């Protein structure tokens, strides 16, 4: 099998230049990662070699660059420059354009790695006088970790997407907005105050909208509309919170401000609620997750992988940043125990929101037959894990470092395996043009290496020991146990649900893997084309990282996450006692994991035997309908009362009105109803308003006369 593997490398054919280049970049990436690991761990055997390298010319250049504060700005603008260059190159040749894309993403990755000294020292780069309050950029270890993960996964997805996008139209536009999204994500991560983050957040919403609607089919346009309007609405909520904060607290910087916040009074709940909802819309928090299952399946697979892998993490990063800023007391008040009270309240609510998100995600995921939609629902569920971790972090106050570590670790892990799963689905789609799991089977014969990679990813997300999902899930579980010990006993219910949902996840991925790869190969798939080697190479890169993290979980913890924790105000003794010496392979955790796997198998067998997977809730039972029910019903009643001749009025420009019959009216979503009601009001009233000016003037003169009479 190994010889056939290497034989296939010779048949690169047309894509030779790109494949050679990508392989070189692939190895350079791992070499760079290796250097980075060596730099962090500094084993005594290699230190001489490292010092020799540092004094060389290239080493000096890199060290100077990493100390320079303007590097943050360079990182943000590198992908933008690259996007313009690739648009020009893309007119001539597809291959050269993709080579330039991979090169620019690699440059961003290397520049991101070089940020480490600044991340440790937390320097700020300020631009006064722009945008009234000034922009500021700051990197600390939390954003640093996210920057590295973002650019790493982006690099592998770019290597993967060359072949995938050859089958789509308007590639230049796609790559342009993809690079724009990358630079806005980097801007959001490197922001030092809330206004800068908001600026790049809005740009990110707009450019990722173009990715979602890339296919230009009617369902991708309607999914894109929903995504855009919900995203803009979230942005408006954050804007409202920014304005309120400027008035009440006076500063937008990301520094701990719990004491100042408490002095404001009740409005602080409103501000926190607005900010959490605004960022939660992006993060797939229930109940505003409704755009996610519609937007992620309709995007092309590289965009789906990045949307689901990275963009929703930016929402989680925003929530994490807000929790750190608003619930941590300032340095002088650290010993005050009542300073953490606000955090307890918000954290408790966050725990429940997290568990409900997890529940909704897994519940709907088990019912899906479309594999992409199932993965989208699983994204919601895994985001629930992260939100649960963040909630525990706020709830436990100064002992909440385990929740922080768990949430951050799970962000890294989920980014890795979710993008990998989407890439696997993309390869299968290229060959057999099918997303329905029930119609596939036995594909390990045609895609052997893809099947191994998918197996690694499924083991990762299910949380099997020796793979990375296990590490983060057991961290969150430990944090949950701490919360039950130190906090409210009602959280035991949360722990039961946690175990249940983990079992559900295991079930779902057993279903995913076995229905797609195991079993009998269908007749029409026996002669489908096999996968492209370079795409598998890109996926293998991520799979390797997953396995490496799973084998050595303490590396990330000791060298990156715990230094990030020490930059915050968490209690150091707690960190030392519990996290630093945590044994991931303790018997208690392994036994619990075994129980979960067993439950997962039982659910799966029951589901297959009694066809439980085919149970569907009716399609009108979506969260959107429940949430918007009062408004929808009011608008519907208004239409029915006034719109008897609606069909006559129906010829206004309405992008939602593909189908103009009355039955379509009854099943519209929220935005569609707003359009219809506005059209109705305009048709009925506009001409009357313009013609009957007498009425208006009489009314106004009456008002003036009444003012007059009031005085006399």
């Amino acid at each position, binding site marked *: 099998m190994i010889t056939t593997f290497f034989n296939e490398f010779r048949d690169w054919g047309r894509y030779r230049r790109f494949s050679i280049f990508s392989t070189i970049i692939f190895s350079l990436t791992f070499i760079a990662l290796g250097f980075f690991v060596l730099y962090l761990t500094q084993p005594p055997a290699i230190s001489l070699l490292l010092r020799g390298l540092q004094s060389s010319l290239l080493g000096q250049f890199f060290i100077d660059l990493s100390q320079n504060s303007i590097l943050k700005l360079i990182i943000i603008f590198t992908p933008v420059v690259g996007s313009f260059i690739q648009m020009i190159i893309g007119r001539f040749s597809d291959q050269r354009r993709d080579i330039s894309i991979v090169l620019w993403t690699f440059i961003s990755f290397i520049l991101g790695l070089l940020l480490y000294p600044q991340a440790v020292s937390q320097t700020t780069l300020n631009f006064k006088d722009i945008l009234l309050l000034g922009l500021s950029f700051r990197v600390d270890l939390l954003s640093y970790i996210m920057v590295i993960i973002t650019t790493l996964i982006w690099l592998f997805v770019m290597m993967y997407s060359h072949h995938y996008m050859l089958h789509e139209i308007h590639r230049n536009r796609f790559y342009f907005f993809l690079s724009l999204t990358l630079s806005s994500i980097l801007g959001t991560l490197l922001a030092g105050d809330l206004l800068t983050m908001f600026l790049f957040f809005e740009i990110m919403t707009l450019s990722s909208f173009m990715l979602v609607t890339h296919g230009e089919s009617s369902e991708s346009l309607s999914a894109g509309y929903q995504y855009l309007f919900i995203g803009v609405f979230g942005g408006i909520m954050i804007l409202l919170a920014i304005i309120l904060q400027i008035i009440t607290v006076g500063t937008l910087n990301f520094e701990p401000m719990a004491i100042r916040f408490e002095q404001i009074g009740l409005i602080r709940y409103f501000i926190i609620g607005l900010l959490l909802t605004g960022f939660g819309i992006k993060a797939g928090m229930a109940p505003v997750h409704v755009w996610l299952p519609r937007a992620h399946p309709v995007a092309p697979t590289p965009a789906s992988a990045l949307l689901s892998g990275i963009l929703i993490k930016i929402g989680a990063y925003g929530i994490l940043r807000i929790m750190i800023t608003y619930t941590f007391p300032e340095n002088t008040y650290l010993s005050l125990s009542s300073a953490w009270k606000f955090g307890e309240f918000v954290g408790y609510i966050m725990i429940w929101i997290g568990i409900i998100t997890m529940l909704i995600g897994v519940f709907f995921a088990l019912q899906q037959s479309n594999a992409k939609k199932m993965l989208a629902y699983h994204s919601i569920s895994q985001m629930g894990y992260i939100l649960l971790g963040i909630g525990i972090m706020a709830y436990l106050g100064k002992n909440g470092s385990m929740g922080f570590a768990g949430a951050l670790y799970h962000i890294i892990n989920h980014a890795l395996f979710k993008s990998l799963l989407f890439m696997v689905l993309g390869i299968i789609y290229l060959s057999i043009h099918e997303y329905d799991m029930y119609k596939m089977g036995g594909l390990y014969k045609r895609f052997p290496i893809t099947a191994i990679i998918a197996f690694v990813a499924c083991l990762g997300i299910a949380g099997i020991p020796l793979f990375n999902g296990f590490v983060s899930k057991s961290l969150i579980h430990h944090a949950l146990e701490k919360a039950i010990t130190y906090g409210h006993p009602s959280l035991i219910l949360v722990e039961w649900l946690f175990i249940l949902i983990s079992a559900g996840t295991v079930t779902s991925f057993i279903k995913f893997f076995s229905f797609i790869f195991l079993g009998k190969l269908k007749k029409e798939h026996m002669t489908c084309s096999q996968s492209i080697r370079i795409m598998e190479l890109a996926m293998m890169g991520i799979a390797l990282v997953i396995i490496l993290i799973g084998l050595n979980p303490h590396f990330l913890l000791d060298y990156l996450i715990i230094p990030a924790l020490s930059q915050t105000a968490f209690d150091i003794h707690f960190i030392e006692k519990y996290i630093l010496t945590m044994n991931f392979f303790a018997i208690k955790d392994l036994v619990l994991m075994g129980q979960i796997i067993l439950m997962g198998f039982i659910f799966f067998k029951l589901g297959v035997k009694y066809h439980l997977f085919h149970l569907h809730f009716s399609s009108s039972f979506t969260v959107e309908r429940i949430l918007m029910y009062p408004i929808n019903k009011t608008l519907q009643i208004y239409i029915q009362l006034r719109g008897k001749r609606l069909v006559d009025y129906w010829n206004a420009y309405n992008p939602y009105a593909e189908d103009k019959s009355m039955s379509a009216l009854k099943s519209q979503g929220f935005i569609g109803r707003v359009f219809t009601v506005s059209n109705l009001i305009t048709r009925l009233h506009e*001409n009357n308003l*313009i*013609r009957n*000016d*007498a009425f208006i*003037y*009489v009314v106004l003169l009456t008002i003036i006369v009444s003012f007059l009479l009031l005085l006399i």
Partner: protein
Amino acid sequence: MIETLLKHTNYLGAIALFIIGLYTVLTHNNVLKKVIGINIMETSVFLFFVSIGMIQFGRAPIIKLNETDIVYVNPLPSALILTGIVVAVSITAYSLSLIIQLYREYGTLDLDKMLESKEEQE
């Protein structure tokens, strides 16, 4: 009561004319009547303005030499109204030319019918 009414006839007449003019402009459909209504409103405002300047027992504001201590009527409002009358004339002329064009295009002088035919055209 009647005394105050009789003393301030000018003001009351001006207000009454203003309301009549406003009513005419807003409610009549015929376009020419709207222009006439505007003219009535303008007249009423001019009447009001000029009667402000009236001072009891005042003389016409022409200075004769060697006469001091004479009460003159305020000349300023009359000067302002001259400007106003010019403006009123030009507005009337312009609106009448517009009416001629409207009649050529629509064939009717009724504003409601014109608005309806414009809506049907869309």
